[in-house]
């Protein structure tokens, strides 16, 4: 009896030892969700299957109008990342507002800190949520600081307090000539739903899956997720926008159609784990 028992113990000890050894060899270290690390998203603006070029290249929309783009800016905010296991991480509000500008290369890669993990999906708001639109000025810092953006990059309506979510401007022979002879189109889309009276709400959320790929966020390893943003989708969608009929769209009921279109302008392209 005594002998059999000690044999059992010996077997058990060996077994556990063996098992752990195997395990170590096969699997990478598990992500530690208590450790924060960086993930990068690149917003690569394109026009159909070409890279977007400001002013120089002519594109054609679904109704057959030719145009060039001189300005393309949009806010992305309120990021939520989802892991393969289905866990969600909501990026803290104070560090999740970004203004992407086609004219500024650095603005096109945004960085956030998330817990270590294998991420398969991201969702975010195109624009600025209504809470932030009504928040105390002292909480409007960085890309939301009204003074930080000047001239055509101004993404704020001062007469009707609120942020402009997406700004697209350019030239098109389809647009009527202004007194200087220029044929410009201007789309300034915003509207957070109104403060004391309800009005248009163009706050849109989009969810982008990384297909079957995992963005492996680990300390010292920050994956880069490459998204494509297709400016043609601003024109083409559930409403095919005609520059001739709508050369200027700002705070107006029609802007809702453009917001519905651009909600679909983001897509996953590829990702790098490193």
């Amino acid at each position, binding site marked *: 009896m005594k002998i059999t028992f000690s044999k059992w113990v010996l077997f058990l000890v060996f077994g556990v030892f063996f098992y752990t050894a195997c395990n170590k060899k096969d699997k990478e270290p598990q992500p530690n969700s208590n450790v924060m690390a960086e993930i990068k998203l690149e917003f690569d603006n394109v026009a159909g299957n070409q890279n977007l070029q400001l002013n120089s290249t002519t594109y054609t929309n679904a109704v057959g109008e030719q145009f060039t783009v001189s300005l393309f800016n949009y806010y992305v905010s309120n990021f939520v990342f989802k892991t393969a296991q289905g866990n969600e991480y909501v990026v803290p509000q104070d560090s999740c507002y970004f203004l992407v500008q086609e004219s500024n290369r650095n603005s096109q890669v945004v960085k956030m800190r998330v817990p270590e993990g294998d991420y398969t999906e991201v969702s975010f708001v195109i624009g600025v949520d209504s809470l932030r639109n009504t928040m105390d*000025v002292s909480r409007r810092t960085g890309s939301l600081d009204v003074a930080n*953006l000047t001239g055509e990059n101004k993404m704020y309506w001062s007469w*009707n307090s609120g942020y402009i979510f997406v700004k697209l401007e350019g030239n098109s022979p389809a647009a009527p000539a202004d007194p200087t002879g220029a044929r410009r189109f201007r789309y300034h889309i915003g509207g957070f739903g109104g403060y004391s009276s309800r009005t248009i709400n163009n706050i849109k959320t989009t969810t982008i899956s990384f297909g079957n790929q995992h963005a492996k966020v680990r300390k010292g390893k920050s994956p880069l997720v490459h998204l494509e943003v297709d400016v043609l989708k601003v024109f083409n969608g559930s409403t095919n926008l005609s520059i001739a009929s709508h050369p200027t769209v700002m705070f107006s009921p029609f802007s809702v159609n453009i917001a519905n279109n651009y909600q679909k302008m983001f897509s996953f392209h590829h990702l790098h784990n490193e």
Partner: protein
Amino acid sequence: MKKISFLIVGFLIFVLVFWLNSCTKKSEVQPEITFVKPANFPEPVYKLERNPITKAGFELGRMLFYEPLLSRDGSISCGSCHIQGSAFTHHGHDVSHGIDDRLGNRNAPAIQNMAFYPHFMWDGGIFDLDLQPIAPIESHVEMDEQLENVLEKLRKTRKYPPLFQKAFGTPEITTSKFLKALSQFMLMMISSNSRYDKYVRKEKGGELTQEELEGLAIFRQKCGTCHSGELFTDFSFRNIGLSDFVNKDEGRALITLNPEDKYKFRVPSLRNVALTQPYMHDGRFRTLQEVLNHYSDNMQDFPNLDSTFRRGGKLGIPLNENEKTKIIAFLRTLSDETFIRDKRFSEPTP
């Protein structure tokens, strides 16, 4: 025994006099700035705890309010359109008159009692006093400047960084500090010492004549639905049947995009109204008499004309000349001489 109590009383008097003396001395050097809600006013809407008013913050705000650097070419300040003697309106201008003599499309309203306002501008498009100054600074017909350039210009002066340091503890000039200083100044601009105020608070100098009292009664009855409460506005948006031939400004509908709101404008406060001519959002009426003639006789019909004006056979408010005279007499009791002369709000001498 008597001697001792005499001594004690004497000592107490000495202490009291000394204490009072030191107090008054202090306040001569540094008149304290404190926000006091007038007894007959409602609670303030502005959240004062998020921007505590200090003497240094108020003084900085005052300096900025009168600072021409806020405009593109250094030609105009907030005080150019909001003139103290006219209760901080643009006296004599129907629509505001800005940089390069460009005309806006609205009449500059009085800046007074801003702490009690739930929204700003004739169409209520701005819901926070802190956000208000951005609009005139960046408007092409007003100051035509960029906020960032304004901050940059202030940073380059020798005067401003120390003032920001005094007001907010650090010399950096940020959007938030800039706007909060202007708010501090405007929050303190309370007009509550008209003869009417003294009358309702039963203070000295609060005597109203028989004519004025009758005017008040008629006013409460015929105008009080909209010009209600101690601020003489319920802050609602109404269409009062002003002819749209003159001005195509759609008012509140520009903010809500609701066709129902076309040509509706915020009910204005009537405090200091005798000092703030011309009248209405586009300054179309030069006198109070013209305003009353509009209410009694000249109203244009609109589908969304306020229902108050449909009560009688004729559109508008039935008023005879005698009643108009009395109403005007009452409206003049809303003028606050202390407010328009208050040195704390006038242009600082450099």
